[in-house]
């Protein structure tokens, strides 16, 4: 059975910005390397006058040409070697706030998305991607969403906080409406899209990258987004799944206090709309009691070298033998296929 890597990455390069057009070219990110007082060097992009990171989270267990998508065949061969049929590609740069200028955001998203579409066009069956939307301008975001749908995108990339809004804010309802119509899920990926909160927490990875996603997922469920948009699928990506029992417990203390709601211990396990990407170090037999067999997926974080990266995660899940092989098949294929609409 084919395995779907529910969370793989591309590393943006100068080529990513070759798709900027016309006057947008003035917003082209500039790569720089800084000699730090520690004696190490750090790599950044200069975007709109700001120093933006995201060039140093590099998984050396992958080749440069593969992770940067300079050689698609190389990437596909590596996927064959590690037993991955399909990868769903998420960005690297955009895991953090990049700009608060709507014009720059639109230009960068358009260029990134066209680069991704170009990559997809070379391996349509095996490389799918999550679209990066210019959410500071909702009308443009919807245009970009529609364009990406015809060009290989199978999900909407969002972070735990986007713009100046929590994810259950009505500001995002037009997006959820259109994503539902296009059968594209919302992948809330480890990351944050708000400069103020990010800087206040000093970019502390656990809080800004993990807890904010769990908080966003929680707030969408508590505020009834799945009920309001019954065709919308929502996934929490790259934050492990060990938190699922905590979330379910907390929601079930809150539901009875809300008008018209009651406790729902099966809020995830009984849902066809909610998903989470797990990790091999999660206590999966326990997590499955809360998440159910049909909600978990798994990703390798291909291309990165951070706390969630595990190139061979999909293979290890099989080897670990902790859970029923039938459930493993669901995690490796059936569930991500359903989440990303690849079935």
């Amino acid at each position: 059975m084919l395995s779907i890597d529910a969370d793989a990455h591309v590393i943006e390069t100068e080529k990513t910005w070759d798709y900027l057009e016309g006057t947008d070219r003035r917003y082209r990110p500039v790569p720089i390397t800084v000699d730090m007082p520690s004696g190490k060097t750090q790599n950044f992009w200069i975007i709109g006058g700001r120093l933006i990171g995201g060039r140093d989270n590099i998984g050396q267990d992958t080749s440069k040409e593969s992770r940067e998508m300079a050689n698609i065949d190389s990437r596909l061969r590596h996927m064959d070697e590690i037993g991955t049929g399909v990868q769903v590609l998420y960005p690297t740069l955009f895991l953090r706030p990049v700009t608060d200028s709507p014009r720059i955001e639109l230009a960068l998203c358009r260029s990134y998305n066209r680069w991704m579409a170009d990559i997809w066009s070379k391996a349509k069956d095996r490389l799918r991607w999550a679209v990066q939307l210019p959410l500071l301008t909702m009308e443009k975001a919807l245009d970009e969403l529609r364009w990406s749908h015809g060009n290989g995108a199978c999900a909407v990339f969002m972070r735990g906080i986007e713009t100046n809004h929590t994810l259950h804010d009505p500001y995002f309802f037009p997006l959820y409406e259109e994503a539902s119509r296009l059968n594209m899920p919302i992948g809330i990926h480890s990351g944050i899209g708000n400069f103020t909160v990010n800087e206040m927490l000093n970019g502390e990875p656990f809080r800004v990258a993990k807890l904010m996603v769990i908080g966003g997922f929680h707030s969408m469920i508590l505020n009834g987004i799945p009920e309001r948009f019954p065709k919308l699928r929502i996934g929490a990506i790259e934050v492990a799944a060990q938190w699922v029992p905590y979330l379910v417990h907390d929601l079930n203390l809150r539901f009875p206090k809300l008008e018209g709601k009651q406790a729902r211990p099966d809020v995830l396990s009984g849902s066809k709309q909610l998903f989470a990407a797990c990790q091999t170090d999660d206590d999966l037999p326990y997590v499955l009691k809360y998440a159910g067999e049909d909600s978990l997926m798994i990703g390798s974080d291909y291309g990165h070298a951070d706390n969630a990266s595990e190139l061979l995660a999909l293979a290890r899940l099989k080897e670990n033998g902790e859970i029923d092989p039938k459930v493993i098949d669901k995690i490796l294929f059936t569930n991500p296929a359903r989440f990303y609409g690849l079935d």
Partner: protein
Amino acid sequence: MPIIDADAHVIENDSTWDYMLESERQFRPRIVGATNGDPAVDYWFIDGRLMPRSNVEKKLPEAARNMSDLSIRIKHMDELSIDIQVIYPTIFIFPTARRPEADLALCRSYNRWMADIVRQTLDRFRWVVVPPLLNMDRVAEELKFGKEHGACGVYLRGLEANRRLSVSYFFPLYDAASKLDLPICVHSANGSIESHDFFLDEPGFCKFKLAVVGAFHSLVNDGIPERFPQLRIGIIEVSAQWIPYAIHDLARRHTRRGKQLSKNVLKDKRVWVTCQTDDDLDYILGYAGEDSLVIGTDYGHSDNASEIEALRKLRNDSKIPAQVIDKILDDNPRALYAL
């Protein structure tokens, strides 16, 4: 065996601020309501900001909630089989002050009010002192005052002074708390105006609970227990169900740094966590160990964590061995608060 309620509350009232100095009266909080008398509009007005006064369990007598008549509260504790309550504030769950001088006035008055309330009944009530963290040079003397007047912990929120709790700004606090044998008690709350207000329309999971879970993670990940080897840490009113997730994440981060997270992290780092009766305690104990869980009622409040019968329910549910329950109800809070 004595039973200790590791997380109870007092509801502040107008007399809480009677202890302000003459020079501080300009910062005295005011109770404000709607001019049309709508009872749903009920706030404190403090330093230019509004704080809700809605998290109150109205089934309890007012004199028990605000501790104006301790005999009523003690009678109720006896009915609940609670021997000692550790009292946390209500108003300071929110970021209360923008200006250092207002912060100092509020903390000083609250601490003196609490000292006055419990001075005759220290066998039944202990309390956590609120440090004026926008005035770090005044923190040590305030902690000393608290210690001399029955305080058994130092109140902290998940974020304080717009900072993470692991940054060096707080080292003088941790040093003073260590010397006075007072644990820092990070309670479900948020002291950052920016972070709190960003999540204003959110009921508390992000702005209060996750802020505290994040604080636990950063304190441990950044080595605060090793830097302050006498410091004890309480993580209060966020349940214990999150512990496996935080430990899994910490373990991965330690491994990446070539270190190994100890098997009994909480005990080794001197961290205690309040659990709730809906937690999967048999499972959680596998991560937390028997010596690190405590439990509270959230007495006085009516929120997601409030359970007036929590201590009795823990005993009666018998989901975990009786000797572990004894530890959660007595030995562990006694160790955390050095009672």
